């Protein structure tokens, strides 16, 4: 126990240090530490599974399930260091490192994903507002909206690409359409929920002002729906990346991640690490998109009390970013 008198300015007492540590763990430092801890656990689990199962044909049965530990062989689960190595090495002789190629392809895919995401969001919002306005339209059209999502996108994509080529003379135009087809649905559902999930007294307040339907929409229903909309966008952002990759497959276009996945899947036996490296970059693209949407949400919804842990993490994380970034607002 330290006994520093109160009159001394900022005495570094042990309790103070412990308090600061607590503060650090609650804030950005904690976020980063938790992230690293979980990353280490995942790495440990991957390499641990390989260590146990490496180069065996050991099989056993667990009830009806046959377990074959040869699954952890290098061919199926490359060492993480091999994946990292594959990223830094050129995939073709004399070419640039794989990471460079993949980043370029990811940029291509992300660009199309963003276009599709934007189109899908617009359609989703428009449908929701239309449905909120007319019960009749909602009842008439909603079954089709739901049905649209039961058609496997994999079956639909080749058709859309063919139509796009016939209609516009370009396969590329069809690709964001497929992404939009996937992205509009959660936006419609969540927005509709947000538009109608208005407290009755909030509506009566508007009624007491003799407000028009349009004013009620733009001053009450829509702002009320904004958090719901962001929930939808956080779902559709990573899904848009997946949607675009699926859309790339039937086009044969080699500029995006879809082409890279097909390509490296074909040469999987000779170099499994490259497909895993591509998966890694794809995941990063999805995460980047998600984080961008989450950041926009944080910028837009400044009026909300940070309610859950994720919110607070994002809050502290971006406060930290703002803190270190040269662009300062205020």
């Amino acid at each position, binding site marked *: 126990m330290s006994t520093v008198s109160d009159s001394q300015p900022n005495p570094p007492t042990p309790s103070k240090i412990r308090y600061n540590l607590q503060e650090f763990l609650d804030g950005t430092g904690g976020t980063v530490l938790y992230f690293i801890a979980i990353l280490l656990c995942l790495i440990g689990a991957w390499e641990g599974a390989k260590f146990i199962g490496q180069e065996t044909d050991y099989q056993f049965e667990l009830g009806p399930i046959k377990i074959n530990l040869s699954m952890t062989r290098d061919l199926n689960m490359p060492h993480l260091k091999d994946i990292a190595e594959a990223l830094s090495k050129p995939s073709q002789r004399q070419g640039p490192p794989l990471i460079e190629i993949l980043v370029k392809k990811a940029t291509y895919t992300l660009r199309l994903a963003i276009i599709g995401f934007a189109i899908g969001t617009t359609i989703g919002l428009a449908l929701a507002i239309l449905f909120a306005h007319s019960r009749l339209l909602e009842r008439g059209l909603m079954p089709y909206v739901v049905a649209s999502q039961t058609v496997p996108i994999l079956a639909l994509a080749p058709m859309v690409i063919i139509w796009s080529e016939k209609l516009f003379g370009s396969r590329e135009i069809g690709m964001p359409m497929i992404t939009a087809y996937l992205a509009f649905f959660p936006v419609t559902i969540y927005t509709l929920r947000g538009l109608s999930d208005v407290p009755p007294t909030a509506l009566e307040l508007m009624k007491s002002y003799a407000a028009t339907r349009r004013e009620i929409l733009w001053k009450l229903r829509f702002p009320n729906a904004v958090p719901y909309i962001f929930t939808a966008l956080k779902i559709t952002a990573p899904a848009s990346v997946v949607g675009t990759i699926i859309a790339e497959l039937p086009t044969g276009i080699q500029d995006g991640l879809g082409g890279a996945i097909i390509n490296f899947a074909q040469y999987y036996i000779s170099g499994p690490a490259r497909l895993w490296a591509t998966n890694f970059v794809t995941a990063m693209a999805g995460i980047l998109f998600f984080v961008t949407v989450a950041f926009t949400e944080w910028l837009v919804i400044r*009026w909300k009390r940070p309610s859950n842990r994720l919110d607070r993490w994002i809050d502290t994380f971006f406060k930290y970013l703002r803190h270190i970034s040269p662009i300062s607002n205020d």
Partner: protein
Amino acid sequence: MTAVQDTKTIISIKDLNKEYVSSDGKVVRALQNINLDIHEGEFISLIGPSGCGKSTLLRLIADLIQPTNGQLTINGHSANEARKNREYGFVFQSATLYDWRTVLKNVQLPLEVMRYSRKERDQRARDMLKLVDLTDFAEHFPWQLSGGMQQRVSIARALAFEPNLLLMDEPFGALDEMTRERLNNELLEIWGKISSMTVIFVTHNISEAVYLSSRVVVMSPRPGQISQIVDIDLPHPRGPETLDSDRYFHLISEVRHLLREVHD
């Protein structure tokens, strides 16, 4: 119109009935044969046990619901016209602030709907915030305010477009006793400042009703009826000395006895 009196009749209610029909077809008689005239500048409290139709009566006046039959005129025309003309401000039990608007913007909400100019919106909203003593919180969001402060914002919002009728449905029901007392005084002060403003105030708190009102309307349940109207002849302005006066205690016990009869 009736003959000219010393005060104008603002609200005239004749043989008003309200039945709710629930989804399973059951009929609830919420109000039966309500007759009541309210004059300009009065402070009327509606008091009675829960379910006696206080909110129903207030919402009928506000044209938020429609009567089954009977007559209800406000400023000489129908409740619907009064609502369309924005002749009243309504304060709910929960402050009902819009979370995404700052305090200032919340007060501006009715002014936006009513197409006031930007300059006037700003001026009026700031004046109202001064009136409820919340100038320093103009840029705060609702969640950053206590329950009592939120309710003051909602009062400021209801007064922003200067209606001459203020309808309040248990506005202080969810607040602690100290806050309630402070807001009662603030409300009286505002009512005193804005001459000719009529207030209809729903409460189930007897001392609050007596302290604030010029008349207390005691209601009875099943079906909701007016059982008695008590004139509150306490002198104005009211303050701490009112709370200590014998007359105040006397009136409270009078209303309490009436309510006890009603309960059985």
